[in-house]
């Protein structure tokens, strides 16, 4: 399996731990600084991983979604001390609900972007390697489900190309004919998906998947580099968790916006969080520079 970047070449446990930490922290911290940190670093990593595709998808899908989430909250939530004006329904429009909507939108898009990075780094073989022993059935189902959409999309392409060659594509005929063709294609796809699932399950069973004493080949080694990464992630996780428990990342939106005071200690929590979020980017850039130097040295 070819790795997408240097961070992907780390042990799967490190990859998983990183994403678990970052996702949990993103979902729990409503502090605006934490949200900005999370969104910016997730976008940076996604762009590093996926290049132009990440920029396109974030502009095309994330931005409208963010705007919608930010607008929907003040339309339905009227809590808050600062009444700006009154909506046509008669309920107040408050500054707090707008701010909360913006924060929720940021959190939502950050989580989605983190998941796009997750799917690029945590491939299903890594996931099954990590959890295949502990929860064999669940990890197989999970990896199959996660792979389902891309596989379905690819198969849709194959089926519709094949149908086009016999003149039964959605691009031919009257509206009714096209609709009928589309339904046929969908029916073929569903049949294929059901059969494919059974085949996968059968082939996994015939290979003895999940049986006790079964070994699996894997090339992952937990070496010194992974140990150093584990220590770093553990330190960041504990430090930020301690800061959270102590209220250093406290922020509330209702009834009035208020948060932890900007003291050196609270800023240090945010800085550590920023460092944690940017760990893979930082690892990748260092490795890229090293490679570049080595290549230049050879020339």
């Amino acid at each position, binding site marked *: 399996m070819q790795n997408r970047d240097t961070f992907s070449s780390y042990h799967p446990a490190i990859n998983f731990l990183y994403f678990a930490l970052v996702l949990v922290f993103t979902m729990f911290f409503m502090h605006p600084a934490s949200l900005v940190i999370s969104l910016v670093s997730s976008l940076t990593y996604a762009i590093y991983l996926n290049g132009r595709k990440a920029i396109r998808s974030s502009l095309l899908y994330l931005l409208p979604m963010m705007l919608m989430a930010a607008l929907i909250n003040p339309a339905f939530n*009227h809590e808050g*001390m600062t009444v700006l004006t009154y909506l046509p329904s008669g*309920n107040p429009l408050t500054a707090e609900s707008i701010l909360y909507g913006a924060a929720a939108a940021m959190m939502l898009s950050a989580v989605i972007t983190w998941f796009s990075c997750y799917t690029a780094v945590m491939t299903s073989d890594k996931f099954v390697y990590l959890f295949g022993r502990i929860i064999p059935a669940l990890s197989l189902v999970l990896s199959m489900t996660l792979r389902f959409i891309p596989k379905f999309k690819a198969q849709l392409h194959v089926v519709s190309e094949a149908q086009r060659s016999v003149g039964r594509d959605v691009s031919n005929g009257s509206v009714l004919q096209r609709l009928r063709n589309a339904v046929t294609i969908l029916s073929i796809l569903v049949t294929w998906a059901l059969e494919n699932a059974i085949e996968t399950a059968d082939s996994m069973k015939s290979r003895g998947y999940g049986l*006790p004493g079964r070994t699996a080949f894997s090339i992952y080694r937990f070496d010194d580099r992974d140990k150093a990464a584990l220590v770093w992630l553990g330190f960041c996780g504990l430090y930020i968790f301690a800061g959270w428990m102590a209220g250093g990342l406290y922020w509330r939106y*209702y*009834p009035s916006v208020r948060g932890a005071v900007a003291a050196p200690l609270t800023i240090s929590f945010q800085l550590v969080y920023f460092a944690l979020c940017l760990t893979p980017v930082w690892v990748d850039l260092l490795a890229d520079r090293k490679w570049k130097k080595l290549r230049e040295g050879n020339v």
Partner: protein
Amino acid sequence: MWWKKNKWKIMIPVLIVAVLAAAFWYGGSAPGLQGWTAEAGPAAQAETPVTNPSPAGDALAPASGSTENPPAAQAEGMESSVPASVSGESGGDVSGQNGTAELPEPEYGRVLETPAGQSPEAGIDSRPGGTEGGMTAQEKVDAAAEIAGGSSAGVTAGGTEYSESQGMVIDPAAGKDQYLTDPVPEGRPLPVEPQDAEISDTACTCTLSISCAAILDHMDWLDPEKVELVPEDGWILKPTEVTFYEGESVFNVLQRTCKQQSIHMEFENTPMYNSAYIEGIHNLYEFDCGERSGWMYQVNGWFPNYGCSRYQLQDGDVVEWVYTCDMGVDVGGFYSTGN
């Protein structure tokens, strides 16, 4: 050997049961939380050094100093406007009980020293249903009925004949009108649907007040983020003369006054009851002070059994919006139609 082979077959069910048990416990279904009695809150407070002889925790104790405070005096004044048939039925203790419900003056002194003794954050878990909420609607009603010991003071059962003679259409099978309203007690005004109300140009005045004094008794139940919102004396809007136009409802007056006075207010229209429901005033929302808390209104000392959009005001009415922490029991408005 057997253990090694079947380790996970035993470990996983045990783990699942443990997680479910923890969730069950934490979710508010623990026996200790389910079995709490409503007296536990106020009674526990009463055990803390209380120098004031007035037992505020017992809602049914007749108030000694009901004449000393303006709201109670108002309520008593109002009693006189109620037809004799209503007050006559409940006897002489009507005014006394209403006086207690109005939170007489001596209570304020006691109340203000209670929060100092215990930090509000300490007791939030002690409120009914905990912080997450675990009571069903019926459990809440039953618990409130238990504390109230039946219906509130000064109300009589809904008069079906009276309501029908006044033009209320009551479905004989359900015993309620089309908006699920029970018959209105005798002598009380019937609901007027907001879509039918004719608003004229005649200006009238009424007295409007908004109070959350009941929270002062249950500061430990209040959401810690909202403690700063509660005024020291409980008044969000002291009794104020406001002008309205003939035909307007309590809701119209509340909405306009809140806009004028820059008081935050959120409502929701509930088509089922054909009325607006007041979710929060001054950022104090329903359920902010325990599971049985929310806003109630009374007009001339009576808590109507229908929504505020359907109560058409008369000149000189006294409208009081009160925050309850106990389904109305602590403000004297549990069953508005008796039982």
